[in-house]
């Protein structure tokens, strides 16, 4: 079993060493691939010193595209399981096991870490939380699976999911559409309870106008994704 930790990063030069250090401490068995999404800060210099593998995108693709690039590379490198951990430090390396377990036992093709199963720790409040709840309810109904944290980026992908997503991982702010896409293509998604921290430094790229656009994209995805033909992927289980 070749397992990889995938860390998409945009302007997180100060947080990356912390995240990588934590990962090495809790999971020395995992290889690490960082995808630098056209960062304008000192990320490249930091990466050179961290001793990890990395992809340096020269144009900004956004988180969805960056993850897709990483999954594409991971597949080429022969990995069969990939854990996505964000570079801002919100996802804790100590919880990676919870995400990997359902894949290891074959219970699911992909696992999403949810802040809202069990004790939550840091979580969103106010209007964004209401929006998340509405989204969660809609997605649960559409995918016929429990969706409690639709925008969580803490994911683990098994071999079947990796094969599909190396080509078709959604772009933009992709997590809700990802659940729709996996469901439409017959992949089982399990949820694992996790606690997230506030980001270690910097600011989110999800500004209000981007959030509005992302919301519209989710609406569009809700209409369109269930009606799409299932995707065929070369390669076998």
């Amino acid at each position, binding site marked *: 079993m070749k397992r990889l930790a995938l860390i998409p990063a945009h302007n997180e030069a100060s947080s990356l060493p912390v995240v990588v250090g934590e990962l090495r401490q809790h999971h020395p068995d995992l290889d690490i691939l960082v995808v630098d999404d056209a960062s304008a800060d000192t990320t*490249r210099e930091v990466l*050179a010193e961290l001793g990890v593998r990395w992809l*340096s995108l*020269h*144009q900004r693709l956004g988180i969805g595209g960056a993850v897709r690039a990483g999954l594409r590379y991971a597949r080429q490198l022969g990995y069969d399981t990939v854990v996505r951990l964000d570079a801002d430090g919100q996802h804790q390396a100590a919880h990676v096991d919870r995400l990997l377990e359902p894949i290891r036992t074959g219970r699911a093709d992909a696992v999403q870490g949810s802040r809202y199963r069990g004790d939550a720790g840091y979580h969103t409040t106010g209007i964004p939380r209401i929006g998340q709840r509405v989204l969660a309810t809609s997605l649960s109904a559409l995918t016929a699976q429990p969706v409690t944290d639709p925008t969580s980026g803490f994911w683990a992908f098994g071999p079947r999911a990796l094969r599909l997503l190396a080509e078709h991982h959604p772009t*933009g702010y992709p997590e809700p559409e990802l659940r729709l896409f996996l469901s439409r293509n017959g992949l089982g998604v399990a949820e694992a309870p996790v606690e997230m921290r506030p980001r270690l430094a910097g600011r989110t790229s999800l500004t209000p106008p981007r959030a509005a656009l992302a919301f*519209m*994209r989710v609406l*569009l*995805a809700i*209409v*369109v994704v269930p*009606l*799409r033909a299932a995707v065929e992927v070369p390669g076998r289980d």
Partner: protein
Amino acid sequence: MTNFVQVVAVTVSALLLILVLDLVRRRKLTEEYSFIWIVCAGALLVLSLWREILHAVARWLGVFYPPAVLLLVLILFVFVASLYFSVVISRQRAQIERLVEELAILAAQQRELGQDRDAAGHPRADDPTRRTTSHGAD
């Protein structure tokens, strides 16, 4: 606006909206670029359905035949959409040119790396084209 014209207008706008959504469904049209068409088709649909708004706008503009306003709006939308896509094309042109340059640089770096070893993989000593300075980072 007569009933017949309204039926035609609503049907055509609805069909346009469905066409755009189907193109997104078939992955022929990317979500990002579909929004402007969805907004246009949607606006046309709304104007076709609510003749009061159309008539009010026609009165305000001094246009005698309300469906002419629909035509005007359609032409305006098509113009704006075309302009928007010209902007997108310009940005993509810049991206493509940058990719071409990066690729050429990457190929040169690969070539130079290759020249440091002979066929058996032994480091070459006296390759005349070999650079003595560092090749630099990305």
